[in-house]
């Protein structure tokens, strides 16, 4: 029965749907940091894009199957073994009882996803099974998995075998280009800072989590000394505190903040943020709101055949 966690790794959590429509009560979005990779994993086991799956962080994990079921691993390239046999990412496999799935740290990027054909039992809070660690709710008792945990599963019939179309697999290297629009307070940056932010790559610091990450690079200057009233922030918001070191917010981001919002990642690139890890570089590419909306349409069209239910 279920799936036994033999090596949990740095931060393995259960994630499902993002929480939409709760930010006015201070409840963040959560869900997979890289929603596209999770959707591709679920697709290979015949599940909807946002069905509950495992999100692995930086160090991989080792699982033992307590029941026979199909599974698939997606995300950045890593060494994957099923009971000692090397297997591929982006492909459906069938595990027998007692089979062991061992996933190494990703070579680049940050997060791998494991989807299984059986239904995963998880706490459903605010209409979602996604784990939100700071408030300890959702997923597996509101926490990251530990060695020895047993994830409950319910048998679900599935017989297919699939491979992700290769043009949908995102290559990940040491630098990520992410498209952005000007944020609400972009004009508060002086003109030198505006061009620095959009020309120079920034490096992800060790202060990095599902809430957000610090960006190291050319420091920025805010022209106005006036403090802002706390206002909405979102995943993909780049904030600039007085120190001049910007922060890029991610899926578990707080709902409001008082620092200038200088950039906003375009909707169709939000999933890329989930693959940024300490030491990686990010290069922001400026887009107009019209270009951003056109890119969303193009990307949705490209995904519509393989992932008809996926939304950004």
């Amino acid at each position, binding site marked *: 029965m279920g799936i036994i966690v033999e090596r949990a790794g740095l931060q393995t959590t259960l994630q499902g749907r993002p929480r939409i*429509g709760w930010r006015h*009560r201070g409840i963040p979005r959560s869900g997979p940091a890289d929603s596209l990779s999770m959707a591709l994993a679920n697709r290979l086991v015949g599940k909807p894009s946002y069905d509950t799956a495992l999100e692995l962080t930086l160090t991989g994990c080792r699982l033992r199957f307590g029941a026979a079921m199909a599974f698939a691993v997606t995300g950045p390239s890593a060494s994957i073994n099923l009971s000692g046999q090397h297997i591929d990412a982006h492909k459906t496999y069938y595990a027998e009882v007692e089979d062991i799935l061992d996933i190494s740290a990703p070579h680049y990027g940050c997060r791998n996803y494991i989807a299984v054909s059986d239904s995963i039992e998880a706490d459903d809070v605010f209409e979602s099974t996604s784990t939100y660690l700071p*408030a300890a709710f959702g997923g597996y008792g509101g926490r990251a998995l530990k060695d020895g945990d047993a994830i409950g599963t319910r048998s679900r019939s599935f017989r297919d075998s699939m491979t992700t179309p290769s043009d949908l697999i995102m290559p990940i290297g040491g630098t990520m280009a992410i498209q952005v629009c*000007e944020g*609400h307070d972009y004009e508060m940056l002086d003109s030198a800072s505006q061009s620095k932010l959009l020309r120079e790559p920034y490096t992800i610091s060790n202060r990095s989590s599902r809430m957000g990450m610090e960006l190291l690079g050319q420091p920025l200057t805010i022209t106005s000394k006036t403090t802002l009233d706390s*206002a*909405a922030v*979102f995943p993909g918001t780049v904030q600039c505190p007085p120190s001049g070191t910007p922060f890029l917010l991610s899926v578990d981001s707080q709902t*409001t903040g008082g620092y200038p919002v200088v950039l906003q990642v375009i*909707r169709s690139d939000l999933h890329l943020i989930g693959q940024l890890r300490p030491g990686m570089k990010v290069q922001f590419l400026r887009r107009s709101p019209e270009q951003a909306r056109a890119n969303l349409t193009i990307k949705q069209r490209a995904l519509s055949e393989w992932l008809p239910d996926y939304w950004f």
Partner: protein
Amino acid sequence: MIVSSYGDCYARISGCNAHQRIVLSEALLATKQWEEVVPGISSVTVTYSEDLTPAVVERMLKSIIRVCDTTIPDRGKSISFPISYGGSDGPDLEQLAKRYCVSEADIIKQHQACIYTVEMMGFTPGFAYLSGFKNDWSIARHATPAKEIPAGSVGVVGAQCGIYGLKGPGGWPIIGRADAQFFDVTRDNPFLLSAGMRVRFQSV
């Protein structure tokens, strides 16, 4: 009030007073047309799906502004919390008293004398922004946020008072801790407070 859209699916109404913000957010939430409606201290921000365009959204927000002053919000019920000031429950009280050359008792007395209004819920689950802390001290946020503040901690900044519903990092100087579970996911209603409610504090 000013309407401005930014990014590919965000628009903000800024320059709202408290009354406008509460009425606007309630009206916007009631339409169920928006993915998110996020009140700020002087703004309301919405996010929208790709079926809408920035131009249409700006028109919609301008028309909702025109009707928002015609309704009076329900200010909600009043609620009083026991609070323990100073010491380990209010680790910044002593420093504040020193900095503003008053006694700790002066700050406590002033804090208890005020009636607060929940302006908005936000930041993290259960965090409440309260207005109504009348004082002459212009207390500022910490330059470096504290790493971990216990749940129930009560902080003050300027004329605002903030209640931390969860333990976690925070930048507000903490003067005490209220004895209540402001956020409890196991309750039918996990939130003790909501925008518009009146709050008072009483020493334990």
